[in-house]
């Protein structure tokens, strides 16, 4: 990120953080937290869980800040840390998510389904996917990231991302059909 409104660029804040200035890191966090919260919120079910996950992401970033080479914007590097931490979180909490329930599901394909209800229905169905499938389909369809970007951030090949997205869609359709039939 370049200089904005006289604020120091990310690179300056990173150098100050590495020199031991905690306030510089706080400024860096304030600048990028919205993006990280946006990603992490897709994989959490409560504010407390979201807060914990975001703290974990930024603490990881803080500990590995010395490895940031500045070859790509800091935002990309931080997103990669965020996506990988979210993936680890999904794997750790996989069994908890099997218990997710949804009452009175509105017909998912109905025209009048409300945005919030659509998200709840999707959250319910996404919770039943594998961590890999859930990560890919969420970033692809809800965050509207490209396959290339997802591949770059996860470290998976583009074809791998496509295969996982395809499988995720098949699984989602099956889950929603089964639930609708009940």
């Amino acid at each position, binding site marked *: 990120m370049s200089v904005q409104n006289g604020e120091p660029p990310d690179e300056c804040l990173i150098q100050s953080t590495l020199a031991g200035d*905690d306030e510089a890191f706080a400024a860096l966090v*304030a600048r990028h*937290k*919205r993006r990280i919260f946006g990603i992490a919120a897709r994989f959490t079910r409560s504010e407390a869980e979201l807060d914990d996950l975001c703290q974990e992401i930024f*603490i990881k970033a803080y500990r590995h800040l010395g490895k940031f080479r500045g070859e790509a914007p800091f935002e990309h590097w931080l997103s990669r840390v965020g996506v990988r931490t979210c993936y680890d979180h999904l794997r750790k909490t996989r069994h908890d998510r099997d218990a997710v329930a949804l009452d009175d599901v509105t017909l*998912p394909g109905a025209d009048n389904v409300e945005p919030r209800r*659509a*998200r709840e229905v999707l959250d319910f169905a996404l919770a039943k996917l594998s961590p890999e499938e859930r990560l890919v389909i969420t970033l692809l369809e809800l965050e509207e990231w490209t396959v290339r970007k997802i591949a770059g951030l996860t470290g998976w090949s583009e074809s791998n991302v496509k295969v996982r997205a395809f499988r995720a869609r098949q699984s989602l*359709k099956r889950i929603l059909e089964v639930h609708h039939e009940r």
Partner: protein
Amino acid sequence: MNDDQLNKLFATARQAPPDTGRAEFAFETRLLARLRAERTAAAPWFVWAWRLAPLFAAIVLALGVWNMTGTSDPLADLCANGSDDIALVEMLTGE
């Protein structure tokens, strides 16, 4: 369910992005507090040794001063030595 229905569901869900405003509030403060707490908890023993160095120095200084003042009364030492000798003689003679 077909692909069109699923795409429609995704499009509708995208209209309601998660609201993270409340969770973001004062996040930096909480994060820095946690970082500082972890840093303190993870401090190795030699860091504590350095932090306690002034205390150790004060103790050594106090002991030195006490030692100096404690031996500055020659009469007390003389008496102490004298009573030691008497006690020894009494023990050896069985009195």
